């Protein structure tokens, strides 16, 4: 089984600050990490590899600095890594990005594609499903558990809804987006960390893929950001001293009054 895991390098948003004048994210000096949902997707792939045997290939699109994220995945135990990097890819929105990634998946060939549900910098949750659409393969989103039945060559996914789970089975190539709550990603290990030093990262450029320039990059992106705004928090604090029961009632009433519950 060849598993392609699509990952994204994102700024560690727990350390990010917002420029109060321009209303934009200050990314300078903020460390980059593997997007948490994507890191869990790597973990899922590595668990499948341990249990059933698989080749785990990690794929990302981004500037050359994204190599660090790929090398981290290799140090966790992934077998190969590819970086989609080309000036022609710059400025891509989710649709253009998924067009490019789908073309790369097609080129590399896979039996299973795993993605994280969504990235903490954009929170769109669109790229995974869009890749599946471009490839015209089934997709299962919001996976809370992923297993494989070797005898029946079937992937079994527990899909999470707000109030219930749905268990789905898939045969043949499909794409799954996983939730970070599925499992804690393992730490890197020293064996693979030293071994990754000798591995090459495959660079995939525009010339390597069957793509139309009209569908990728800034020009191929229908999404346009009109404006961004930062929510202003009202910091007026009301202090009342009450016994626990009255306090609970007061809180509930206050939340109700603001239509929060």
């Amino acid at each position: 089984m060849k598993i392609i895991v699509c990952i994204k390098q994102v700024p560690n948003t727990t350390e990010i600050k917002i420029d109060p004048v321009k209303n934009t994210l200050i990314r300078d000096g903020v460390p980059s990490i593997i997007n948490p949902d994507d890191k869990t997707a790597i973990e899922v792939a590595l668990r499948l590899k341990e249990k059933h045997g698989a080749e785990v290939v990690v794929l990302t699109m981004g500037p050359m600095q994204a190599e660090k994220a790929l090398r981290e995945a290799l140090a966790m135990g992934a077998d190969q890594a590819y970086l989609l990097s080309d000036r022609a890819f710059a400025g891509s929105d989710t649709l253009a990005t998924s067009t490019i990634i789908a073309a790369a998946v097609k080129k590399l060939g896979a039996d299973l594609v795993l993605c994280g549900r969504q990235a903490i910098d954009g929170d769109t949750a669109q790229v995974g499903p869009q890749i599946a659409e471009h490839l015209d393969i089934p997709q299962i989103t919001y996976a809370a558990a992923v297993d494989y039945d070797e005898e029946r060559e079937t992937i079994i996914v527990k899909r999470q809804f707000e109030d219930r789970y749905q268990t789905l089975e898939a045969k043949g190539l499909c794409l799954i987006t996983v939730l970070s709550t599925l499992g804690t990603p393992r730490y890197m290990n020293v064996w693979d960390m030293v071994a990754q030093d000798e591995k090459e990262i495959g660079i995939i450029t525009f010339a390597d893929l069957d793509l139309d320039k009209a569908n990728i990059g800034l020009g191929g992106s229908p999404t346009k950001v009109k404006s961004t705004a930062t929510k202003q928090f009202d910091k007026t604090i009301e202090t009342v001293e009450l016994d626990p029961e009255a306090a609970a009632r007061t809180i509930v009433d206050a939340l109700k009054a603001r239509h929060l519950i």
Partner: protein
Amino acid sequence: MADYKSILFEQMIKDFAENEVKPLAQEVDEQERFPVETVEKMAKMGLFGIIIPRQYGGAGGNYNMYISAVEELSKHCGTTGVILSAHTSLCAAPILEYGTEEQKQKYLPDLASGKKIGAFGLTEPNAGTDASNQQTRAIEMEDHYLLNGSKIFITNAGYASTYVIIAVTGKGPKGPEMSAFIVEKAFPGFSIGKKEKKMGIRGSSTCELIFENVKVPKENMLGKRGDGFKIAMKTLDGGRVGIAAQALGIAEGALQATIAYVKSRKQFGKSISAFQNTQFILADLATRTEAAKLLVYAAVDAKQNKLPTLSLKAAQAKLYAAETAMEVTTKCVQLHGGYGYTREYPIERMMRDAKITEIYEGTSEVQRMVISGALLRK
């Protein structure tokens, strides 16, 4: 190309120390409990085999990675730091350096995977700094050595499975002839004695080793007969770099904790970090710690590149880092005031942990002997 191996190692060990080691440190100290769960996690990550070559099941990493691991772990828990240091420097390293091909293939894979933990036995009740005054005897028989005697203050003793043991095998030209042996926990007649109750590194398993007619196969002699003392001294040169890194880590951890404390603690209407006394003490301690770090990594360089200056550099690094750890933690307790004396804050534990680094693997006095010896021999 960027040195991703080092960048990723630093990220991994920092995350691990903060998320897995720090939360357990207080409990491990209070209950005097060997952190088995942490050791299992470290084994999975390959931390016990960093410097062991790949052909023996290790990661084939460098000395720098190993030492930075001891440093990072010790920032939060001195106990965890020394478990790794004793295993690597005092057991895996001498087998790697002096072992036969058969010994390496037999013992290193399990030490690398952490399936077995390593320990080293030199010290005896009457052979501390005077390490050549060994009483443990290994008498040559037909196909084995018969080992009798005891060792004390052995780090990792209760949880180790592979031990490098120094014993007297006869009379040499200038005193007792000593040899080194690889002893397995399962050898009949070998038992673990009293566990020490200690001031610091209380989770570390420090016990007595007892040998009663233990048959050690002849092929388990490490190095040549009569090389025991030399092997022990060379092994301790390497071990001292590990302990220096532990001391450095403790000093850095104490500074980290104290910087956070002085910023939040308010007296006379302002945070105590606003007082010049606090600022100047912190400045001095941070500078001294940085100097210790440079000495530690100079010794790492000597070890990594097998330089003849290792013995001197290791002694200087350990002497300075240990005394730095003691000074930093003592002054950090003072900056914490009354709270620093309570177990509510980690700083008193760090001070207790720091003290051992001035004592084991050669006291500060021994380091001064080694350093002055190197100076005056010239």
